[in-house]
């Protein structure tokens, strides 16, 4: 009897561990909709603060965190099935490149260049522009 109980418990433990490991390994990139943003920035305020792209390292503490960026939409590009939006500051010195989540297509199709928008995305760092991935329009 005891043997049967131990065997059953062992099988349950193995199953739980197996399912847990499988879930951890196969976990998809989280939907940005379900992540709270830590800060909201206006791209014009960022430009006033950093003056030039080389100083964007001031924002390194936000890397891998969700942030909101407000500003004027200047470009919409499509690469294969991915949409990339660019928000540019008033004087054109700072821009944010936002790689959009695939569920945003309907919203993107309604956007117009020159429109003021707010994007939420995961900040990844900068080259000459701020780069955000998994972005959504809010």
């Amino acid at each position: 009897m005891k043997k049967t109980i131990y065997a059953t418990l062992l099988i349950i433990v193995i199953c739980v561990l197996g399912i847990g490991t499988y879930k951890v390994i196969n976990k998809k990139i989280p939907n940005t909709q379900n992540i709270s943003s830590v800060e909201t920035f206006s791209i014009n305020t960022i430009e006033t603060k950093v003056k030039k792209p080389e100083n964007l390292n001031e924002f390194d503490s936000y890397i891998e965190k969700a942030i909101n960026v407000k500003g004027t939409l200047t470009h919409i590009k499509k690469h294969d099935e991915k949409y990339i939006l660019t928000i540019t500051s008033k004087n054109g010195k700072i821009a944010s490149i936002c790689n959009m989540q695939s569920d945003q297509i309907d919203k993107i199709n309604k956007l117009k260049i020159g429109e003021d928008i707010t994007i939420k995305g995961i900040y990844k760092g900068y080259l000459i522009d701020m780069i955000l991935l998994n972005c959504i329009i809010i």
Partner: protein
Amino acid sequence: MKKLLLLLFVSICFGFTKPKNQYLTRNGQVTFFSYASAENIKAENNEVLSLLDVSKEKIAVNILMRAFEFEKSLMQEHFNDSYIESDVYPRATFEGTILNFKPRLKGSQTKFIKGDFTLRGITKPVKIKADITYNDGEYTISGETTIDVKDYKIKIPQILASKIAKTVKISFNFKYEPYEK
């Protein structure tokens, strides 16, 4: 006065027809693929910065390593934290010269690009075969190459060493637009 007007006309015409020398993309694509017996590893980066100077026949590429997108969260985490150490080495760069480049040749030409690729702070010389297309005043450069993980001291845990390929295939596609500073 006539001479002055003629000079102005010529300089305006020259200004309008003067070919652009520098081309830029902020949305270059770089993908990498590594064969693994358990599961292939693939990631894509659509935010690669590249500058092409056709008069100097030079190309520069700057890649933000954290901007590589993986399908699975854990792969992305391992890539940034364990393999590339993106906090310490946030960018990879390439600077090279296009050999025997014919800048204004319309259509496609296949050329070698010789230069230095820097990853994880380690610089190695590389020679990459690329297709260069010039159409409607814009350039596209695409191609692929392979890198050896040990050249860049990418540490693969012993337990996974036999399951992960020693080389990584890198593909790129850059669509440039004229650039003025």
